[in-house]
């Protein structure tokens, strides 16, 4: 209610508007490609399934053959092309001041802070698609029941390793 100006991104067409307004770093733009490929791998089988269903059933029922196929492929292609870039822009992170901050989503935006001293252990993972683009994801485990894992995707592999080392050093200094 008090400071709506800072809550709203100033320019909805500026891809970095959300992150800069909240003081977050963006994830690697190559993460768009990762999202695009994983979305495609999910949606194309669905679209193929819809086509088969269309060809096997609707045609024999003498229904509007082609409608489901066309719609399925249209939606799939639209989601593969347009959404990943936006989803990538909604991710943001900030590491420093003894804590890791990860923000994601826009319609339902969640902004998580994990102090380094609360971290139980850290994973750096890399899927086959991520490896293709030289990216990694960082998973931070806490002992909380809610947020027992916090994942930050779309990091260059060397940056993810560096972040892991940073957090690890903090865990050690806390218990020393």
């Amino acid at each position, binding site marked *: 209610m008090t400071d709506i100006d800072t*809550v709203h991104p100033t320019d909805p067409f500026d891809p970095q508007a959300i992150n800069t307004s909240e003081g977050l770093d963006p994830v690697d733009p190559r993460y768009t490609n990762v999202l695009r490929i994983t979305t495609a791998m999910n949606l194309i089988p669905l679209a193929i399934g819809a086509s088969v269903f269309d060809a096997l059933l609707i045609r024999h029922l003498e229904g509007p053959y082609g409608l489901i196929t066309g719609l399925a492929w249209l939606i799939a292609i639209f989601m593969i092309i347009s959404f990943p870039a936006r989803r990538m822009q909604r991710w943001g992170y900030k590491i420093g001041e003894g*804590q890791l901050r990860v923000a994601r989503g826009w*319609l339902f*935006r*969640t902004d998580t802070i994990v102090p380094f001293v609360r971290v139980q252990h850290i994973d750096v993972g890399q899927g086959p698609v991520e490896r293709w683009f030289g990216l990694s994801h960082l998973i931070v485990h806490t002992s909380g029941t*809610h947020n027992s894992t916090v994942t930050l995707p779309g990091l260059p592999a060397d940056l993810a390793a560096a972040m892991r080392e940073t957090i690890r050093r903090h865990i050690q200094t806390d218990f020393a």
Partner: protein
Amino acid sequence: MSESPTADVAAPLPEPDWQRLHPATLALAIVKLGPRSLNFLPAVAALGFTGNWVYIVPAILLFILFSLVGAWLRWLRFRFLVGADEIVIESGVLSRQHRTIPFDRIQDVGIEQGLVARALGIAKVGFETGAGGAGKENDANLDAIGLDAAQALRTTIRAHRSAPVAVVPVATTEGEAAPVAAADEDKLLFAMGPRQLIIAGLFNFSLAALAVVGAGMQFFDNLLPFNIFDPRDWVDIAEDYGLDQWVVAHRWVAGIGGVVSLLLIGFASGVVTMIFANWGFRLTREPRSLRRTRGLTTRTDVAIPVRRVQAAILVTGWFRKRFGWHELRLQSLASDGEKEKDHQVVPFAQLADIDPVLAEIAIPRAAEDADWQHSHRIVALGGFVGAVGATIGGLTAVSFGQPLGWFGPLTGVLIGAGSLFGARFHRWIDLGDQVAIRRGMWKPKTTLLPHASVQSADLKTDFILRPLGLATLVFGVPGGSALASHEIPAIPRSVAEALRARILTAKARV
């Protein structure tokens, strides 16, 4: 397999001092056969339906024989060893399992006795190791050993934990010396006598038992000549006995009789469940933990390490609140039995009796007249969506000619009004080193959450909260249910950010 430190102690002996479960465990296995044989019913039914009646008795006998032999084999192959600073359990008939649990890692030793187990003088010992995630089956237990052996074992483990450097006495102690020494330090924090149990039971009024009775009546519908829930059957009976004229003349008598019997069932079930669960309730303070014993048929003995307590939860009801009765639960890393996530440490007491318990765990209660902050009224929105859904559904049913559909709009209005009214009960206050969150109108629930318990914090906004400049804070706290996370809904975003920054800079609890 015997590379454990205990093997060094008992190195000269080829066979260390392995112990078996109490032989009476076999008797327990026979008792457990009763419920388990229900699984066998379909097979019996199948035999019956196919006309092979002669095989039924041999089949049942064979089943019993196999079960008993199985239980005996399991008993034979289960052994445990109490070492100087660890316990080793070997189990499994075909696939052997060898498990070593250091005393240091045992957070909690629970002793549980069912009705049969009490008659036999044996008890089930559960070791809570705090191993996260995989659930209860991950924790080791001894089911069952003699009660005195169980208490001696717990004393051994406690002694080890409270004096890590001291030399631990011989593990398989039968003596009573150690328990006496420990008992001196115990302080009774809370106990429930029969009178308080009955009062608590009366407030525990529930018609859930009626549903059970009703379901049972449905099940035995064909056995009884009439359905007690069907008024027409009552009329028939009354006619048979010439009562109908009298009842018609005094119809209000029947109405009052129905209400009175409903109330009676509700109160009686409340009192009975309360007495069964909490008979002989005692909460004592031990050097490191709170210890709770309770139960009429199934007696449980649970220790909750104080350092493991993450949050305190005060629950009351809209009616019992007027009389000052509250219930205290503690959220800990360990869970309380299979069903309950939080440990119920005070089932029913006045706040004056609860405060000493809270003092022991160093989580003071927030004052009632303190500066509580309210959540925004938008939290009622979820209820409104439900109300609209109920209304639409009901009206759809009405449009299809179903008069019962009018219940839809009616409940919709009730839900909407209720959520709007209930939204006023979302409150929170920051007390410096802990935050108190209160919610609920029917069942007001106050969570006292020390800042130091918070492992992570989410600041959530969505397309509804954002235009209003609001945010919801969700805390990651160890233990408790994954479904009931602690959150402060719909507070101004700047306030939420400041609160989150304050909470996350807190030092770990000591």
